[in-house]
């Protein structure tokens, strides 16, 4: 999928903007998963092994430390995504570390491959990140939607982004993406798990929100907020300044960006 707009004249500037979006996204993810780590762990205790929130928090805190130690986000968005993925892989561990790690590494690889082609902007970045995440997780987890996994959140989010009218302002598009992700996560409640530890429970896994689907919804909401914020800063899609009806609420706790 390519962005319908023509290539941007200032590729380096756009690459730096994309790196700032990823930086803001990962900082948001670290902050919100940290706040919700006990809830995620309780979800996992019901149908898994009860460490999802704690382990993911630990991994994202390590990613946050890497971002803080770096001299700003730079302009290599592929490298930024790949490094964060490797950090999650090494620190989170378990299935969720492998899956989220692979998700970010696949997205990073695709950003590297697409470098030099038409620069995809903030909307294209969101597309590459979500598409890469879905591909990476589906391949490593050998999973499809409907099995009570992260994919039940991420696939509806990707479809919402792909299906959005191109003339719709990006912040409205991303709000729809975040809401599709959250609806997808909630829809895992009645499902019987077919993958992971929860599948050992069989029918007893029904009635519980899947912890991976829940954490994925947090990550997508943060991505949507980071992309929408970048769009407002850039005036992409001809929208200048804060757009009316932009996602507010918990989205306003974004850590200050390092520029």
């Amino acid at each position, binding site marked *: 999928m390519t962005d319908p707009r023509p290539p941007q004249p200032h590729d380096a500037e756009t690459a730096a903007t994309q790196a700032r979006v990823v930086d803001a996204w990962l900082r948001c993810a670290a902050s919100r998963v940290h706040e919700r780590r006990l809830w995620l762990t309780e979800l996992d205790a019901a149908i898994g092994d009860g460490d999802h929130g704690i*382990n993911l928090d630990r991994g994202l805190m390590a990613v946050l430390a890497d971002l803080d130690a770096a001299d700003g986000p730079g302009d290599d968005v592929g490298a930024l995504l790949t490094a964060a993925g490797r950090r999650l*892989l*090494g620190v989170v*561990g378990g299935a969720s570390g*492998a899956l989220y790690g692979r998700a970010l590494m696949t997205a990073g690889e695709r950003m590297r491959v697409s470098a030099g082609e038409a620069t995809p902007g903030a909307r294209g970045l969101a597309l590459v990140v979500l598409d890469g995440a879905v591909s990476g997780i589906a391949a490593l987890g050998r999973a499809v939607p409907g099995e009570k996994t992260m994919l039940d959140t991420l696939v509806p989010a990707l479809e919402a982004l792909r299906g959005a009218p191109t003339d719709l302002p990006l912040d409205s598009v991303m709000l729809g993406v975040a809401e599709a992700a959250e609806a997808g996560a909630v829809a895992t409640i009645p499902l019987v798990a077919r993958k*992971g530890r929860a599948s050992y429970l069989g029918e007893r896994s029904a009635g519980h929100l899947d912890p991976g689907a829940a954490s994925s919804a947090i990550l997508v909401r943060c991505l949507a907020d980071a992309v929408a914020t970048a769009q407002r800063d850039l005036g992409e899609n001809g929208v200048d300044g804060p757009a009316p009806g932009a996602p507010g609420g918990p989205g306003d706790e974004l850590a200050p960006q390092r520029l």
Partner: protein
Amino acid sequence: MVGLLLVGHSEDVVRGLVAMIAQAAPSVPVAGAGGLGDGRLGTNGLDVADALRSVLARTADDGVLVLLDLGSASMALDVALDELDVAAREHIRVSEAPFVEGAVLAAVVAAGGVDLEAVAHAAERAASVPKRTRD
């Protein structure tokens, strides 16, 4: 000689299994990866990759049989295999055998100098070895 790689969720279980193999078949190259450090249970693909490189370095081209315990051990192995050169992956075989029984049986057979195919076959037989002799 064929080597063994043990991928489990518990550092203690993996270390214990390495010790059992070292006693039963001290000549067999073996490496293990288990736990997330700090006593946390789980599997880490990067640790598995390190262990795999370590055992491959000690087996010449005779190959490595991988034994897995539960669930995400398989995913951690997939992550580790992606870290490796394609050529190195040809020397690796993944067993469906039970973790402890399969590893010990495989080690004893490997110590006899047979090839990877024979070691893999021996390990899978472990699933049907009775625990108690029946009358």
